[in-house]
């Protein structure tokens, strides 16, 4: 019984920490900024793909131990995960920045449009990783260079306002044409070398270094090291975000803008910069989460979709705008999922026959999910604003 409880708590927390890590970025983007970012899962996917790229990069390194001590050989490869975490953060934060500047900033205060636009972005990102190849990249870069370069040059002219429309009408087809022609010329000259997709539609092989694959034996039980790693990483991320929001000056600005945007703007806080930064950090955290969940799951174009519903669930149950809400909600959902899904509750209730039968019915992975969702719906009926609702009159964004 006692080991059963410990087992339940550890497994519940490990499910919860995956949920929390995945939801942390969203808690910031959705919770603090009020942006419904449907592309959050795809940002996680980009983080996972970054991990694959870093892994493949490290595989090219000489397979020679950098440090040997008796039978312990430490390879450089064993540490790629740390590099991957940092790279994943930087790459997805960059993508998030572009996304915010390019799409989302025009849609603040229009949740429905944001939802549709970010959903579109998520589809674009999925198809992008499927079909990205050298031709596509060169074509895109060329197009951006020509189009935006020319626009920037022209915008220096005094009569820019008058020219603007015609400039777009001429430049858009022109630069698109040049990019497409160059692309198809490249494709015909170098054939498969440039037209072959980098990743393609299939899942990527991501093999964690040996120390993250096994587990720490504990009696007849084994603690999976990937799970421990994720729990540690989640704690680290939560502490980091907390410190950043509470202690740094940018954190202060973010909190100020969250509470009252117009007043913050009046007092000289650059709200646009704050928005961009907040979104970039939220996206970067999604990348870190993507890197971490790739230890447990698959890396493919659909990886993100497996998490998006769960992450929104965590943020909504926790209460929009409160990080602590997300933490409690993730752990509660994790532990409930485990206890119901593994049949532990049914085991505990074995003396009471009808109740035990009821929980045995729900003791499969898919039925446990049904039950958790039902509980969440019931809970939101009682407390529509979640576990820790934001108080005061500033909630309406």
């Amino acid at each position, binding site marked *: 019984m006692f080991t059963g409880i410990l087992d339940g708590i550890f497994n519940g927390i490990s499910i919860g920490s995956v949920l929390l890590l995945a939801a942390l970025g969203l808690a910031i983007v959705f919770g603090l900024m009020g942006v419904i970012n449907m592309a959050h899962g795809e940002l996680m996917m980009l983080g996972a793909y970054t991990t694959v790229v870093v892994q493949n990069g490290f595989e090219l390194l000489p397979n020679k131990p950098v440090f040997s001590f008796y039978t312990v050989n430490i390879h450089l490869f064993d540490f790629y995960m740390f590099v991957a975490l940092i790279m994943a953060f930087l790459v997805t934060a960059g993508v998030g920045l572009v996304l915010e500047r390019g799409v989302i900033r025009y849609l603040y205060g229009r949740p429905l449009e944001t939802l549709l636009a970010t959903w579109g972005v998520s589809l674009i990102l999925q198809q992008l990783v499927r079909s990205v190849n050298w031709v596509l990249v060169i074509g895109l870069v060329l197009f951006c260079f020509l189009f935006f370069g020319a626009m920037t040059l022209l915008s220096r002219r005094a009569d820019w306002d008058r020219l603007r429309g015609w400039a777009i009408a001429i430049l858009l087809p022109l630069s698109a044409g040049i990019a497409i022609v160059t692309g198809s010329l490249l494709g015909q000259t170098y054939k498969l070398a440039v037209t072959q997709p980098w990743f*393609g539609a299939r899942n990527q092989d991501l*093999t964690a270094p040996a120390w993250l694959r*096994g587990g720490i034996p504990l009696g007849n039980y084994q603690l999976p090291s*990937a799970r421990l790693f994720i729990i540690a990483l989640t704690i680290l991320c939560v502490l980091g975000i907390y410190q950043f929001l509470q202690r740094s000056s940018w954190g202060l600005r973010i909190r100020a803008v969250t509470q009252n945007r117009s007043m913050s703007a009046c007092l000289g806080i650059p709200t646009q910069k704050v928005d961009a930064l907040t979104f970039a950090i939220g996206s970067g955290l999604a990348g870190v989460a993507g890197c971490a969940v790739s230890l447990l*799951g698959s890396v493919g174009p659909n990886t993100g979709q497996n998490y998006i519903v769960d992450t929104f669930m965590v943020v909504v149950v926790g209460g929009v705008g409160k990080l602590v809400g997300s933490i409690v909600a993730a752990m509660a959902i994790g532990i409930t999922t485990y206890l119901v899904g593994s049949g532990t509750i049914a085991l505990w209730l074995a003396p009471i026959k009808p109740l035990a039968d009821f929980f045995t019915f729900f003791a*499969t*992975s898919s039925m446990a999910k049904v039950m958790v969702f039902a509980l969440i719906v019931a809970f939101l009926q009682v407390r529509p604003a979640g576990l820790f609702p934001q108080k005061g009159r500033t909630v309406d964004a």
Partner: protein
Amino acid sequence: MTEGFGRRKFILYGTAALGTSVLLKACGGQPDTATSPSPEGSPAASGETIKVGILHSLSGTMAISEKSVVDAEQLAIEEINKAGGVLGKQIEAVVEDGASDWPTFAEKAKKLIDQDKVATVFGCWTSASRKAVLPVFESKGHMLWYPVQYEGQECSKNIFYTGAAPNQQIEPSVDWLLEQYKGQPFYLVGSDYVFPRTANTIIKAQLEAKGGKVVGEDYIPLGGTEVTPLISKIKTAMPNGGIIYNSLNGDSNVAFFKQLQGAGLGPDKYPSMSVSIAEEEVKAIGPEYLKGHFAAWNYFMTVDNPANKKFVEAFKAKYGEDRVTNDPMEAAYIMVYLWKQAVEKAGTADDLEKVRAAAIGQTIDAPEGPGVTMESNHHISKYVRIGKVREDGLFEIVYATDKPVKPVPWNQFVAETKGYTCDWTNTTEANPGKFKMTGT
């Protein structure tokens, strides 16, 4: 907001949009797609070419698996064309994307039959997509070739099944496990949709008949990756080891094997038998996680015979040295040849009744082995093999039948279909797709 969408702006953006779209149109049509517009109303074989449809998911969840099947089909078509085509005509493939969406499959099937007037369609992967197009092919009296192992319990006049029926994959693998691991309990794991649920019903009935013991059964939502509760349950149900029978699909497989290893459930004490992990999937999951686990198929890339050598070499030459071949790809490859043989025997590609009749009894020297034959129940006889994952991600074949096993689409372990059989050469029966066996 205040200024309207003026005429001037409209013209400007209109011009921009038009210009761009014209350019895209002009430069689109990538060199590798085989699709081309067809003249309306021409029958499949009337022109210079015979048109066939290829209907698989090239986007969405299933694209991962189905893309390689398309590759295999196109390889077979290319080879046939190089060797002179069918009835002296070249085959022209019309590729349609089912987009992992079942209504889209039905819609594209209609399009291929009505608009493109194809002679036959090669396609589908999931049972759901096959069930979605089945009414289309039956109502139009058309023909589909289906290359994937499936749960059986179906026998359509309009479909030729070149993947394994349960008695050619699931049943022999359970028998093999019962013999190899005497007295060990079974735990059944699957994704939550029709194939794993039907497969597990069959396995449970079979184990009950043969004295095996099932200690648990669990289903994960399609694409789900949280398998912690499942792994604890396996451990609780079989503390001293046991057999995991795995019919998970797609992303869940990756999560399952990664976390199984993390929890310390290795193949020495917890051997698993998988029915949807082939060479492609091993590559994507990582051989490190799968080493020592088993899979049941009819074909492995490591099968040693001249036909397979030729197939693997041709495939690698066309698609790249790092590509692997697997069971559904092999089934897809031979079904194109079986169709070609049937058309040649019938002397026509357009009279589907004649082609159907000619297809029965066609034999091919397949990569999986010689003497693979299309039976009168529209399923083919196949070799049964069990493979163990090697370090390099390919399979070491640990068990193989020495001759093809005849297909039994209606399962004989399940009470509802016990005694049913199917024979499309027998036209006297009222419902030749499903009737009681005589003499049993």
